[in-house]
C-alpha cells in the first residue's frame, strides 16, 4: 500500500503536520489490555456497584425489560448502522423509526413524533425553544415552569435556553397537595406567556389537574408543553386529550420503555406535537413515501429543519440522537402491547400504594402530600433523611431520594420513594422492617452502621 501511495513509511503520511506540533508517547494512558484482562477488571467493578435493591425513581425507573428487546436491538444490523442517510440501504432502521413514531403518537394521542432527542431533560429544553418559536400569538419569550418539574430538568432547561434569552418563570406548588394549584395561575391572567409546562405525574409522583391547566393556558394564548412518563400514560389521560383542545407539545423521558437504569444513560427524549407545529420540531423525522416502482418505503423527511441543511437557521443543533434506545423502545412497546403496558403501569401503581401503606404504619412516618400519585410518593420521616438513607444503603436498600437539597422547603426529613413492578413484597417488607429498626436506633442513639460520607 505504501508503494501504491508512493511513500516509504507511514510516518511520511503525516508530513503536513508541523513537526513541532507532534506529540510524543501518551504516557498517561495505560498499556493495552486483552479482552480477557479488561473483562476481569470490568467484572469486578460491575459487581461492586450492582447489588442494591432500588426504591429510587426520580426520573429513572427499574422496569422489567423483556429478554428479546436487547437481543434484537444489539443485532449488528441495527447496532452498527449509521443515521439512515442512504434510505434504500437503511430500510430496517427507517421503518422501525416510523413504527416508533406511530407508537409514540398512539401513546400520547398527539399527531406526530420525532425520532428522539438526547433525554427527557434536553427534550424539555427543546420543547420550550420550540414553543417560543411556534407560538405566533405570543411575542414574549416567557415560559411558566412549575416547581413540580424534576429539579435536574429545570436546571438543564435553564442552562440550554437562557443563552437564547428565554425567561423561565417558576410556578409554586401547593404545600398540602404537592401539585400546581390552578388558582396560582390567576396571577398571570392576561400576561403574555409563550407556554406552560405541565408535568404528569409531577416530580413528587403527584397527578396534576391537567385539564384545568390546559384550558387556562389556551384561554391565555399560551401553548401547553406536556412532560409525561410514557408508562404512566397507559393509565392516565394522554396529553392529546387534556382539556378542551389537548396539549400542543408533549415530551418526556423514554427510559421506562426498555432502557436499563445504566447510571443515567443512554436513555432517550421523546417529542410529539400537533400536526401544525411539525415544521418547528427539532430532530429527525421519518416519513413514508414510494420508490421508483411505486413500492412503499421510508426516508428522513422535513430535513430542511435540520442543521445539516439549514445550518445556523436550523430548529436545533441536534445530529446524532438516541437511535438504538428507540430501537429498544419500539421492540419493547411491541412486546408489551396496549394491555401489557397497562399491566406494567397498574403493577407499579399497586406496588407503590402497598409500600406506602406499609411504611406509614411505622411510628412517625407519613405520606407528605395528600393527592393521588402514580408510582412515586414523598415520604416524611421523623428524623433527617440523610442518615436513614445511609444506614439503609449499608443494607443494600436504596430507599429513595433525599429531597432536602432540591426542596429545602420540605425540610430535611422527606424522601421520594418508588416501587416499580419489579419490587417484590419481600423487598418491600424488608425495607419496612429495616427502616423501623434504623428509626428506632436513630431515635437518639447514633446509627451503628456508618459507611463513609456521600
Amino acid at each position: 500500500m505504501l508503494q501504491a501511495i508512493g511513500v516509504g513509511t507511514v510516518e511520511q503520511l503525516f508530513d503536513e503536520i508541523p513537526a513541532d506540533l507532534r506529540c510524543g508517547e501518551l504516557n498517561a494512558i495505560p498499556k493495552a489490555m486483552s479482552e480477557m484482562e479488561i473483562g476481569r477488571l470490568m467484572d469486578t467493578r460491575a459487581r461492586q456497584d450492582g447489588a442494591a435493591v432500588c426504591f429510587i425513581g426520580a426520573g429513572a425507573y427499574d422496569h422489567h425489560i423483556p429478554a428479546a428487546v436487547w437481543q434484537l436491538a444489539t443485532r449488528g444490523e441495527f447496532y452498527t448502522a449509521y443515521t439512515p442517510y442512504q434510505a434504500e440501504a437503511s430500510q430496517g432502521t427507517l421503518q422501525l423509526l416510523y413504527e416508533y413514531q406511530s407508537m409514540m403518537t398512539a401513546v400520547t394521542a398527539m399527531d406526530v413524533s420525532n425520532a428522539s432527542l438526547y433525554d427527557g431533560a434536553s427534550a424539555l429544553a427543546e420543547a420550550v425553544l420550540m414553543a417560543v418559536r411556534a407560538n405566533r400569538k405570543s411575542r414574549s419569550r416567557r415560559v411558566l415552569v412549575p416547581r413540580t418539574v424534576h429539579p435536574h430538568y429545570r436546571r438543564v432547561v435553564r442552562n440550554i435556553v437562557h443563552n437564547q434569552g428565554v425567561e423561565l418563570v417558576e410556578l409554586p406548588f401547593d404545600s398540602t397537595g404537592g401539585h400546581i394549584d390552578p388558582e396560582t395561575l390567576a396571577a398571570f391572567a392576561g400576561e403574555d406567556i409563550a407556554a406552560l409546562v405541565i408535568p404528569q405525574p409531577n416530580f413528587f409522583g403527584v397527578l396534576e389537574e391537567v385539564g384545568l391547566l390546559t384550558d387556562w393556558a389556551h384561554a391565555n394564548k399560551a401553548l401547553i408543553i406536556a412532560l409525561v412518563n410514557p408508562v404512566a400514560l397507559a393509565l392516565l389521560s394522554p396529553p392529546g386529550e387534556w382539556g378542551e383542545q389537548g396539549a400542543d407539545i408533549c415530551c418526556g423521558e423514554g427510559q421506562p420503555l426498555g432502557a436499563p437504569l445504566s447510571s443515567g444513560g443512554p436513555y432517550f427524549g421523546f417529542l410529539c406535537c400537533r400536526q401544525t407545529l411539525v415544521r418547528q420540531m427539532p430532530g429527525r423525522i421519518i416519513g413514508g413515501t414510494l420508490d421508483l416502482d411505486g413500492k412503499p418505503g421510508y426516508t428522513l423527511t422535513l430535513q430542511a429543519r435540520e442543521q445539516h441543511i439549514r445550518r445556523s437557521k436550523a430548529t436545533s443543533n441536534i445530529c446524532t440522537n438516541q437511535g438504538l434506545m428507540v430501537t429498544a423502545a419500539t421492540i419493547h412497546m411491541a412486546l408489551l402491547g396496549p394491555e401489557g403496558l397497562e399491566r406494567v403501569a397498574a403493577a407499579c401503581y399497586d406496588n407503590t400504594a402497598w409500600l406506602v401503606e406499609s411504611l406509614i404504619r411505622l411510628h412517625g412516618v407519613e405520606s407528605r402530600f395528600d393527592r393521588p400519585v402514580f408510582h412515586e410518593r414523598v415520604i416524611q420521616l421523623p428524623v433527617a433523611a440523610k442518615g436513614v438513607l445511609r444506614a439503609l444503603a449499608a443494607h443494600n436498600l436504596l430507599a429513595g431520594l433525599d429531597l432536602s437539597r432540591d426542596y429545602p422547603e420540605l425540610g430535611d426529613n422527606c424522601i421520594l420513594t418508588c416501587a416499580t413492578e419489579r419490587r417484590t413484597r419481600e423487598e418491600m417488607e424488608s425495607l419496612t422492617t429495616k427502616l423501623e429498626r434504623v428509626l428506632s436506633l436513630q431515635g437518639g442513639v447514633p446509627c451503628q452502621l456508618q459507611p463513609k460520607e456521600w
Partner: protein
Amino acid sequence: MSLIYQHSRPGRRAPGQAPLAKGDTTAIPERFRRRVRAALPELSEMQVVRHYTRLSQKNFSIDTHFYPLGSCTMKYNPRGANQLAMLPGFLARHPEAPETHSQGFMACMYELQEMLKEVTGMQAVSLSPAAGAQGEFAGVAMIRAYHESRGDEARREILVPDAAHGTNPASAVMCGYQVREIPTDANGDVDVTALKTVLGPRTAGIMLTNPSTLGVFDRRIREIANRVHEAGGLLYYDGANLNAILGKVRPGDMGFDVIHMNLHKTFSTPHGGGGPGAGPVGVSARLQPYLPVPMVDRDGDDYRWLSESDCPESIGRLSAFAGNAGVLLRAYVYARMLGREGIPRVAEYATLNANYLLERLQELGYEAAYPERRATHEFIITLRRQARELGVNTMDFAKRLLDYGFHAPTTYFPLLVPECLLIEPTETEDKETLDAFLEVMGKILEEAKTEPELLKGAPHALPVRRLDDVRAARELDLAWSPSRDG
C-alpha cells in the same frame, strides 16, 4: 415489508412479558384516567422477534458492509466493549445511587477523563454531553461564560469555516451567537487573509476541525490560533475528526481552548442507526471553571461526584443525569484495549487506508478535490466532470454503489465542493475490501459512460428502489393509522 401494525390482531399478547397479576388502580380518580387504550400493536412474542429480525436484515451496517461514510468514522465496534458495558451490575446502577454503591462505575469515568485529557492535550474533561452537537453547545457556552465573566460582552460572533459541519453554526446559534462564515482557500486550508479581516472585538471565538472536513490538515493552525487569541477570541476544536491524529498531534498543543470528542466515532462506540453517542468536552486551564457538571473527582482511593455546588461557575448540567453513561463505558473499554501502543496505530492505519484509496481512485480516473494534498483519514473526490459530461450526478454514483454491496460515502458535504464524495475508509478495513471497493468504483465509472441509466435508476438490488424524498416531504406520512390500511 409490512408494518408491525399489519400483524396486529385485537387481543393478541405476549403474556409472559407483563405482570401476570392485574394491579388494582380503581383508586385513581376518573378525571385523570385514560379512556381508550393506546393503539399499540397486539402481537405474540414470536411475531415481534420475527418482524424485527427480518427488518434488521434490510440495513447496511458495519457488521455487514464496508461503510466509507466520510466524517462519520464507521469503524468496527469491538463486541467486547458492548458486552462489558452491559454487565448486569452496570445496567442496574441507578443514576441517583449513593457514591458508596458507585465506586466501580466512577472509577471507569475518572480514568476515562484522564485518558481523554492525555489524548487531546487539554487540562480537564467533562464527559456528560450526549453527542457531538451537545459537546459543541457546551464548548461554545463555556466560551460565552468566559467572556461574560470578564465583562467582555461585546463579543457576539462565532467564526465558522464554510467547510464546517452543520452542527457548528447551529450550536453557536443555540448559544445566542451570530455566525460568520470564513472561506476556504484553494488548497483546502482556512483562508487566513479572509480570517484576518473578520477578527476583532466582536469575535468570541472560532470553531475549527483539523484535519478539516475537507480531509486535509490545516498547516497554518499555529498562525490561526495566534491570530484568534490576539484578537481576544477562543478556539473551539470540533473533534469529530480526532481519529485522524490520535497519538500524532494534540488539539491542546495546536492552541485550542476547548474541544469536543465524538466517542461514537473515534472511540468506536456503535452508532446504533443514529445514536446514542457521547460528546465529552476538554478545556484548557482558563475554561476549566466552566465545564459542565457532573464530573468525577478522585479523593485518595475514593471517587466522588462534582456537581453544581462544587463548581459554582459551571455552565451547569446538560442532561438529567451524567450523560450517556453506557456509551462512556464502551469508550472506556475500547481505550483500555487499545492502550498507549494501540492509540497511535488508529491514526496510522486510518491515514494509510485513506491515502491508498485516494491514490488508486485517481489512477482510475476520479478527480481529487485537493490533489496536491495528503489525505488525512478521509478525502474528497469531485464528480463535477462526470456530472457535466455524462449527466450522472453524485447521488447516482452513491446509489449505484449500494447495488454492489458498498455503503455510499458522504455525498454533497462539505457544501463548498461541487458534486463531492467524502470518503473515509477507517483503520479497521483490510486491503482486500479496499481493492474490491476500487474495482467497483472502476466499474461504475465505466457504466457512467456506457450505461448511465443504470446509475440513474439505481439502486436496483435493494429492498426498495430509489425513494421519492420530495413526495415524503410534500405528502407527509409520519405515523401509521388504522385508516391507512383500509
